[in-house]
C-alpha cells in the first residue's frame, strides 16, 4: 500500500494540508461551503515546529498500532486497505487512543464527544493533504519506492563527497 511520507526540508508551514484535510472532512467538500458549516469540520493533520524544523504531523497508520491495540470499544479497526479507521458509532469517548498515540494526532470532537483521526482519505486516490501540498513536502509513495529514492540519494551524496575530496 502507498503511504504518506513527509520531507520536512520542503515544508514551509503554509498549512494548506490542514485546510484541505478539514475541507475533505466537511459535508460540502469545498472550502467556501466548509467554512459556513456548523459544527466546523475538523482537520486530522497538524503542522508543527520545534523552532527549527517545520513539518506536518500525521497518522502513520502504524503496523502495530497502539491506538488499535488500546481501543476497548471496538471502534478502531484496520480496513481492507490497511488503514486504521473508526466505526464512529462505537466510540465511547474514553480517549485511550489519544493517550497512547505516539504522534498526538488523534483528537477529540468536542461537539460529538468522540475521537477523531485520519482515515487516509480512503475514498480518494490521492489524500487531500498530499494533493494540497504546494511544495511536495507531503508525498504518497510505496514504501519500497521511497526507500529506493533515499538509497539513491545516499549514493549521490556519497559520490559528491568523494568528488570533493
Amino acid at each position, binding site marked *: 500500500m502507498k503511504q504518506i511520507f513527509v520531507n520536512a526540508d520542503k515544508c514551509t508551514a*503554509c498549512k494548506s494540508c*490542514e*485546510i484541505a484535510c478539514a475541507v475533505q472532512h466537511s459535508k460540502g467538500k469545498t*472550502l467556501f461551503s466548509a467554512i459556513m458549516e456548523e459544527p466546523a469540520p475538523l482537520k486530522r493533520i497538524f503542522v508543527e515546529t520545534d523552532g527549527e524544523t517545520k513539518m506536518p504531523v500525521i497518522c502513520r497508520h502504524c503496523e502495530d498500532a497502539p491506538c488499535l491495540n488500546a481501543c476497548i470499544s471496538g471502534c478502531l479497526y484496520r480496513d481492507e486497505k490497511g488503514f486504521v479507521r473508526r466505526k464512529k458509532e462505537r466510540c465511547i469517548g474514553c480517549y485511550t487512543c489519544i493517550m497512547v498515540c505516539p504522534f498526538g494526532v488523534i483528537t477529540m470532537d468536542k461537539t460529538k464527544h468522540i475521537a477523531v483521526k485520519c482515515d487516509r482519505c480512503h475514498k480518494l486516490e490521492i489524500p487531500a493533504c498530499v*494533493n494540497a501540498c504546494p511544495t511536495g513536502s507531503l508525498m504518497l509513495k510505496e514504501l519500497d519506492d521511497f526507500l529506493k529514492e533515499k538509497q539513491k540519494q545516499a549514493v549521490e551524496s556519497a559520490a559528491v563527497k568523494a568528488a570533493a575530496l
Partner: protein
Amino acid sequence: MNNLIDKAQASTDNATLAALEQAKKANIETVWDRYQAQLPQCGFGETGLCCRHCMQGPCRISPFGESPQKGVCGANADVMVARWISRAVAAGTASHGGHAKHLAHTLLKSAIGEAPDYSIKDEAKLKAVAQRVGIETDNRSTNDIGKDVARKALEEFSEKDSPLTWAATTVTGGRVDSFVKHGVVPTGIDSEVAEIMHRTTYGVDADAINLLLGAVKCALADYAGCHIATDIADVLFGTPKPLITQANLGVINPDAVNIAVHGHNPLLSDMISQIASDADLNEKAKAAGASAGINIVGVCCTGNEVMVRHGIPLATSSVSQEMAIVTGALDAMVVDYQCIMPSVATVAECYHTKLITTMPIAKIPGSVHIEFHESNAKQTAQTIIEHAIDAFKKRDPSKINIPTIKSKAFAGFSAEAIIEALALVNKDDPLKPLIDNIVAGNIYGVCLFAGCNNVKVPQDANYVSMIKELARNNVLILSTGCASGAFARQGFMTQEATNEYAGDGLKAVLTAIGEAAGLGGPLPLVLHMGSCVDNSRAADVAVAVANKLGVDLDKLPVVASAPEPVTEKAVAIGTWAVAAGLPTHLGVIPPVLGSKTVVEVLTSAIKGMFGGYFIVEPDPIQAARVLLDAISERRKGLGLSVVEFATEVV
C-alpha cells in the same frame, strides 16, 4: 506545462482558443498554465485570513474555528478581512486617481501652452464640466476655463475642508444626505488613500464595521477620481459618439504594421491613433513591406478609450492579452499602466514583437522603454511607430497565425450620446422615452456590466450566460471596461444580437430608438459606454433618471455586475456602486468569506444604510435570477408592474 490546460476551462472565445492552440504548439507559457501551476491556491489567502501588515507575522487564522483565532497583535478574522477590503479599495482608488491626475496635469499644461500636442477638443463638455463644478464660463477663453477646471481637479487630490466636488456635484441629493449621515463624505482622493493605509497599519482601526465604512468613504473618492478621468479625457479627446468598429484577434492585419495599445490612459494611445494616419509614416510602413500601412489595435481599457472615440478595433482584452502577441503579426505592444501582465515581455521574446513601456512608474524587464512626456507627445508617438515599423521587418512568416475571427461592434455610447439618441425620439424631454418604457415594463430594468476576465472563469462564460438571461427578460444592458471587450468580441454589440436575444419589450424600444437614429434597425444589445474608468458615465445616466423621477438611486430598478472580476480597481468600483445604492453582483468570490461579520455586512446590513449591497454568486444563471429579483423588488417599491420569473432554468 502546456498539457495542463483544459481548453474548455480557459475560454469560450474561439479566437482566444485558436491562439491558445498556437501557443501550445509553440510551447509558450500562458496565464492559464501559470494558474494551473499555482493550484491549489492557499486557503488562508482565499478566505482573507492571512495578515502581513507587520513583522511579527505573517499570521493566519483558522477558517474552521480552531486555534489560532487571532493574529499575534490580537486582530481577529473580522479585522483581517475588513483591512484587506479597505486596502484593496485604496489601491483601486490610487490607480484611478493616478490616471485622473495624469489627465488633469495634461489639461493644465495644454491650457498654459506646455503641452502643444494636446488641445481642448470638446468645448461643450469643458463648459458643462466647468459649470457643474462652479467655474465661471461666460466671456472666458477656452484655455482659461480649461486651466481652472484642471486646477480644480488637481485640488481634489489633497485633503480639503469640503466634500470632493466631483462626488458632491454628480450624485443625487439623497445620496449626499446618506453619505453625510453615515460619515463617509470624502474630502480628498489621495488623502483618503493615505487614511486607509494609516488606519489599516499595525495597531490602528480594529473595528471591522468602522473599517468598512472607511472603505466606503475611500471608494467614493474613487468615484470622484473616475469621474475626473472621464470628464477630462472627453475634454481633451472628445466625448464618444456611436460608431461601428470591430473586435477580436481577426482585426490584426497580416499586411499592416500592427501596433497594439494596451493599458488604460488615452493620453498616449489617442496620440498614437491620431498620427497613425500620417502619410509619411504610412509610406515608411509600406516601404518596409506592409502594403496596408499602419494598423492600430486596442487591448484592454486604453483599447476601449480609442475604440469609443475613434473606432480603433479591439484586438482582445484582459485575460487573453498574451494571445495578441501569439498571432505572430503584432509588431509592437505599447503599454502605459494597469492590467499589463508582466508575462507579455516573456511571450514577446518568442516573437519579433517589441514590447514598449512608456511610463516611469511601469517598467517591465525585457521591454524597450520609451518614456512618454506630455511636452513632446507626438514625437514620442512617432518614435514608437517607427520602432514598430522596424520590428515589422523582422517578422518570422512561419510564426504568423492570426485567427480570422472578428465581430462587428457598435461602440461610443457616452451618457451624452445616449441622451442625444433618446432626444431623437423626444426632442423636448429626452429622458421621457426611457422612463416611460421602464414604467411600462418594456425595459424591466437596467444592468451595468463592468470588470475583467478572471482566469478562474472560462473567459466570457459568465458574461454570455448572464446577458442572454437578462436581455430576454427585457433588461437594458450597459457595459464598460473589459465587460465591453467581452461583449464586443462575442458579438453582442450588434443589431443582430438585439434581434436574437432581446425580449419583445426591449427589442421594441431599441428598435424605435435605432430607427429614429437612422440605423435602419435596433440599437445594439449592449451599449458600450467606455473603459473601466468610465463607469461614472453609467452613474450619470442613472442620476439623471433619478432626478427626473424625483427618487433616489437606491429606488431605481438598476443593478450592476462584475461577473469575472480581477483587480483592486474592481473592488473600489463595486464598493462605490453599493454606496450609490445598486445591488452589485460579483461572479468570483473575493477573499472575504473568512469573516462572517464582514460577509453579513456587505451582503445584507449595508442595504439598510445605502440601499445597495453585494451579491456574490459564481453561477451566472443563478446570478441573473438574483439580479432580476432585485430589479423586481425595486419595481415593486416604485409601484411598477412585476413579472414572476419561472423558477426553472431555461
